[in-house]
Structures are given as C-alpha cells and as structure tokens.
C-alpha cells in the first residue's frame, strides 16, 4: 500500500521524495502555480501554489509530501490570496493582453481567469523595461517578465548554457542574458534550447510567427488552465 495524504479531503497517494504538487498532479488535481514546472527543480518563488498544511501555509512545490498530511488548497481564503498575488504580478510589469501575441496561451492570464481576477486592484507601477529584438529568431519582451526563472533553470539545467539569470534586488529584480552587451543576439541562445519554450508568459517569443492560431482557438480559449494539470503540456514546443 502506498502512502497517502489528503488534499481538500481527497486521498492522494505519493511516493517518498515527491512534493505535494507532484503528487497532486499525478492524481490529476490542479494546484495553481506559475514558477513550478515538473521538468525542473522547484523554485518556490511565485507562491501561487501555497497550500495550508495542518494549519500552516507553505508552497506546495517545495514541500515534500508526508503520510497523513491534511492539505487544504481550494479554499476561499487561499484563492483570494492567490488572486491578490496574480494582481501583484500584473501591476508589477506591463501586461497589455489585447496586444500580446501570447494572449490565450499565457499562463498568467489563464491563472487570472481561473482565480476570477476582475481588475488589477492596485495602482500599476508602469516600469520602464527594455525590449530586446537583437536575436534573429527570438524577441525578448521584458515588460511581461514575472521572474519565475523557468528560462534560467531550463538554460542552466537542461541546455547547459546559462543564457539567463535574475539580477538586481527587490522590486528592481530583472532578467539578464549572458552577454557583455546585454543583448540576446550576443549569447549562444538558439531556437532549439529548452529555454526558448518554457516561458509561461509572453517574454520569449519566436519572431515571424504571429496569430498563426487565431484568438478564440488558443490553448486556454478551449479549456481553463485547471484542465491542463501537467504544465509540460503547455510548453510551446510540445503542443
């Protein structure tokens, strides 16, 4: 008999070493998340996957499952806090969904819909962030970066390249690329990299590819994000 814990009163089996979100995904139960991806080491920074375990809140992507844990996730309170986090991510950057090529395929947008976010609530920061179109095949629009570090981990751990990293501190934290010029064209980034296909939002986008799938027929137009339990299904190269 395998070990189990309960997630919103549902019994979830798990294997030793599995985190709560891994066990939940294996059982086809959705826990909202943005910086988590089953293919990479968990980061635990977006905090959207925060759940309540025996009364204490912690990120489901970094907490290992243990037998008998009582985990709450789909509560009014937790979803309200997740909604606020999503609003924070929206006001921190410059997210203009109607003009974004990723609209309909964007996990931030889809998560906001999932959580019932109706407005940004807070005053927008409107930061000045650069757009890097130097690379022949890809564009880097940092206005939309949510600092999930998935591209950092993909480039470092899968591609063995270290094309991306987080720099700065606090609200000035930002994505940098591995070039003295600061330009993507001067790195060894390529379209074949895993890092080219894991961005959950619209930062890393292929050039000369716009609206090939019309709005209305895109990933999250068809099904809400909670139906895509395994994030790997959403990677742009695996669709």
């Amino acid at each position, binding site marked *: 008999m395998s070990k189990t814990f309960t997630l919103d009163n549902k019994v979830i089996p798990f294997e030793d070493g599995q985190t709560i979100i891994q066990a939940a995904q294996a059982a086809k139960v959705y826990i909202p998340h943005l910086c988590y991806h089953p293919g990479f080491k968990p980061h635990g920074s977006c905090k959207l996957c925060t759940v309540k375990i025996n009364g204490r809140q912690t990120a489901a992507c970094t907490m290992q499952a243990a037998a008998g844990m009582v985990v709450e996730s789909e509560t009014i309170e937790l979803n309200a806090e997740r909604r606020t986090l999503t609003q924070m991510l929206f006001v921190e950057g410059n997210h203009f969904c109607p003009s974004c090529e990723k609209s309909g395929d964007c996990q931030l947008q889809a998560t906001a819909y999932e959580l019932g976010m109706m407005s940004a609530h807070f005053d927008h920061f409107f930061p000045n962030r650069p757009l890097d179109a130097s690379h022949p095949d890809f564009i880097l629009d940092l206005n939309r970066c*949510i600092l999930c570090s998935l591209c950092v981990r993909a480039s470092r751990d899968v591609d063995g390249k270290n094309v991306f990293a987080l720099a700065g501190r606090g609200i000035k*934290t930002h994505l940098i690329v591995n070039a003295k010029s600061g330009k993507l064209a001067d790195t060894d980034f390529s379209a074949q990299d895993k890092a080219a296909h894991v961005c959950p939002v619209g930062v890393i986008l292929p050039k000369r590819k716009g609206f090939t799938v019309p709005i209305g027929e895109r990933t999250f137009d068809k099904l809400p994000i909670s139906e895509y339990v395994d994030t790997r299904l959403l990677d742009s190269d695996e669709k």
Partner: protein
Amino acid sequence: MEELDHHAEYLGPILDRYSHQPANLLQILREAQEVYGYIHPDAIDYLITQLRLPRTKIEGVASFYSFLYLEPRGQYRILFSDNITDRMLGSMELMTQMCHELWVEPGKVSEDGLVSIDTTSCTGMCDQGPAILVNNIAITRMTPRRVSEICGLVRKQVPLSQWPPAYFDVADNIQRKDLLLHDDFVPGIALVAALRRGQDGMLAEIKRSGLRGRGGAGFTTAIKWESCRNAQGKMHYVVCNADEGEPGTFKDRVLLTSYAHKVFEGMTLCAYVIGAGKGMLYLRGEYRYLRDHLEAVLQSRRQQNLLGNSILGQGGFDFDIDIHFGAGAYICGEESALLESLEGKRGTPRNRPPFPVTHGYLNQPTVVNNVETFAAACHIAQRGGAWYAAMGTPQSAGTKILSVSGDCARPGIYEYPFGVSVRQVLQDCGASNTQAVQVSGPSGITIAAHEFDRIIAFEDLPTAGAFMVFDQSRDMFEVARNFVHFFAHESCGFCTPCRVGTSLLRNMMDKLHNGHGSPYDFQEIENMNRLLLSMSHCGLGHTACNPVLDTIAKFRPAYERRLLQKDFTPAFDLDWSLEAARQMTGRDDSGAHILHPHHPKTET
C-alpha cells in the same frame, strides 16, 4: 589585450587569496571593486575565465548587493545612513547641504566623476549619528561644519587615508555593564573550562543554561548545537552572524570592537562541541573598518594556540576562523540567506526544510548564531549552566545587550538581566516626554506609553537589541513610513508577495504622506499585512507591516491628520498630471487646471 593584462594584474593576487573558489565570489568582487570604485566590465571578463563562471552568475551576484557597483560611481562614494534616528539628528538636511556644496544630485555621479552622494540603510551608528560611509568607511557625528570640511577634502581630492582621524572615531558608549560587558575576560579561560568539562559536559551546561539565540528569534542554542553535532557531513561549520542590519541595533559592533576575544572564543567552544573544523564571521560591509582589528585578534589567538591545530594541546581539536564581509544587504541577516551569501551567491533565503544544522554552508551541518550568543557561551563554560539560568527570567535566561538611540540624554549600550522594564531603560538613558519606543527595530514592535511596564524578555518583548526612543515631538507616521521604505529597499525580490507587497505598502504610505489618504487605505494596509504574513517566503515579508499596524493601532491621530477625504481618494492626481503639459504649452490659466478634482468611487 593590454587592458585584460591590466585587470589580471590586480585580480591575480585577489583570486590567489581566495583560492580561485567561486564560493568566494562575493569577497572577490568586493576587493576587485576597490581599484576602480566599481566592477569594471573587463574585470568581469577576466573573472569569467579564472572562476569558470558565466557572466550571468557574476552580474546576478554583483547587482544584488547595494555596495557593489556595475556602473562607475564617484571616486568618493558618500552614503548617508538613512535610519529614522539619523533623520531625527538632521541627516537629510546635511545631505542636501553636501549635494548643494558639491553640485551633485542625490543618487547621481558628479559630471567630473569625482563624487556620488546617496542614502543607505542604517549603518549601525545610531548613538553617534548622523553617520555616513565614505568608500565604505564609517564617519560619525556629522555636523554642517563637518559636511563643509568633507566637501573641501573631496574637492582637493585628498585621499581618505589623510582625512582627519577624528572623523573615523567610533565610540563604544557603554552606559551599563552586566555579565557580558565586564572587562575581566582572559582569552582562553572559557576554552580551558570547556575542555575540562568535555564535549558532552559542555553541551549539557549549555542545555542547563537555557541560552536562547540573541538574534531575536530566540531559538534554544543547545538544540541547535546538538542537532548539528548529530548531523552527518564531511565537515561541520560554525558561523557567527554579525550582519547586524536591523535599523537601530549596534551592540554587535561594540562586542566585536572591545570583546572580540570573547566572541571568537564562543565560536571555538561551539566548534569543540559540534566537531567543526572551520568558522566564519559574516560581518556586515558597514563595519569594514573593523577588519584590521579583528584580523589582529585572530592572529593573537593563533599565536596563543586558541585557534589552529590541536587547540590548547587537545589532539584533533583543529579549528580556525575566517572573516567574510557582506556588501549591503539586510536580508543576509536571515540565516539561510547569510549562508547563500557566504557561498558567494545572491542572498536569497533558502527553502526550508532542510535547516542549516543539517544542510548549511556548502550543504554541510552548520551552526549559525548571533555574536552575543557566542559571547554568552563563554560565561556558561566558565561558571556553568545553572549559574547562568539563575539570571534573567524563567523563559529568558541571562542578560541582554540593548542598543539605545533616539530621544534620550545618554544613547549607547545597556546590558541588563532579562526582565528589565521599558520604563527602567528609559529612566536610565535619560529619556523624557517619551511617546513611543521601537523595540527590536522595524521588524519588532512599537510600544506606546501605557505599555512601558512591559519587560524585555522572550515571553513579552523579544528583541535583537534595538531600542529606539521617540519623544512627543516626533511624528510616528513618519517613523513608520521610514521603516516601510527600508523594507521595500531591502526586500530580496525572490517571492512575489514581498517583492511587490513591500513596494505597494511603500506607495500606500507615500499616498498618505502626500495627503491622498482615506480610511479605505487602512483596510488596504491590513489586507496587505495578512497577505505578507501568510504568503511571504521569510521573516522580512512577515514583519514588513508591523510598524504600520502598530502605529495605526497606537498612534491613530498621526494617520487621521492626513486623511482629507472620508471615503476614498486615489493616489493619482489629475490636476498634477497635467503639469508637464502646462509647462510644454506655457499655460497656467484656469482653463489649464482641473479645478474640482473629483473622482468617482472606484473601490468599496
């Protein structure tokens, strides 16, 4: 090529000193910067080849720390300590004066590249402020006259080493001594006692003493030492947390200035108990002026066989201590962020568990304790745990050193047995008309007059040591706003709630400051507090709202004076936003103004 050779010339010896180890990246960058005053892009090229690190890693680390620069700064980098206590002593006026005299804007470099002037988080000189740092060296007791003198020295480009030595005087200001601050400590005496007790015996005494960590959280020291000792690893480490970044605290500076032997001996005792081979003092960059003194103390301990191999003739007891410097990041006082920083990384708190006692420095079992905790351990070794436990209160054994600053006649260092009342401390330091005391810094608690009989102890007012006094003339709203700006500046940016939430909170307080506040904002602040408490990654986010919530609860009139509207006022000011257009068109007639800025209620 010639350029690269030049960088190799000064970087070579630095790299040698740090064994070309990427784990020493922060130390290497700190020293590499001293040549140009910033980290030259070509120097990074050289470090990439020598350390085999990607540029992204080096720039990621360098850009995390306030005292490391990737862009040219002034030949003289002047930073004004921006704690509320510095402000109360007139620091902002002095900074304005200096900017005016040197023709430079705050935060910018002068056009000739000679000087840059900016603010920095509390530099730990609150009892002798206003304080500044010049090229990371502390100068205390700034006055308008001293500002003018310094401007003259800068203009004449006099090297810092030739500035009047009196500028660099840092006083201990010890006002009340108890156990830790008596001067009768003979180096080695506690180690001899510990060796006599044996490792188990020494740990048993620490247990009996009830000693709890002095960094503020109050974790039981014996449990930490025992768990670390029992953990498996290639090597065990002892780390002394001397990051002392909490605004208003400066007692570790005094302990390291005048009681360094006691601190190092406490670390050595810990090494003996847990079987550690290496110790590290993580000293905040603001205290860099202590380096030569501390190295000399370490050297004298090596000469006395109190460090090194077979300490005091005990075969197998090999232990030595290195000094590592921080570079301006409050978050590195959090123990797992400190360990990341020690490993040469960005100071981001780790996901826990696992805890440092099993997976600390380089993933090895590590004890991280505060400076004062190690000093206290020496007395327990000498006199025993039962004797120590008899001091203080049942849950808070021993003594506590307070760093007293603000509105009082005698600021400085006060050591009391735990259990002393706030009222007693206020009386001893010569405070009058006291409105409030901030205990344990911005992340601590604001105490109002009706609470002055509360006591300093883990069971009532736990504290890392800061004790800032505010008299009736002070505006407690502005105190809280200063603290909120501090948290927004020091948030590491790792987790969403703290990264964005501390900035939102800062904006809310600025909104009130600018006269756009309404009761709606109180609700917003409370919501933000709940979110930061439940969702943040570490203690910084958890405590960031404390000063605001405390001051709203206890000093509400200071907020209500700022509320112009009964219901809701947006931060956005429509008339003000037309100012740029007015300037461009040269208009200032009534048609160019919105006379009745009324905005529909947008939120409930």
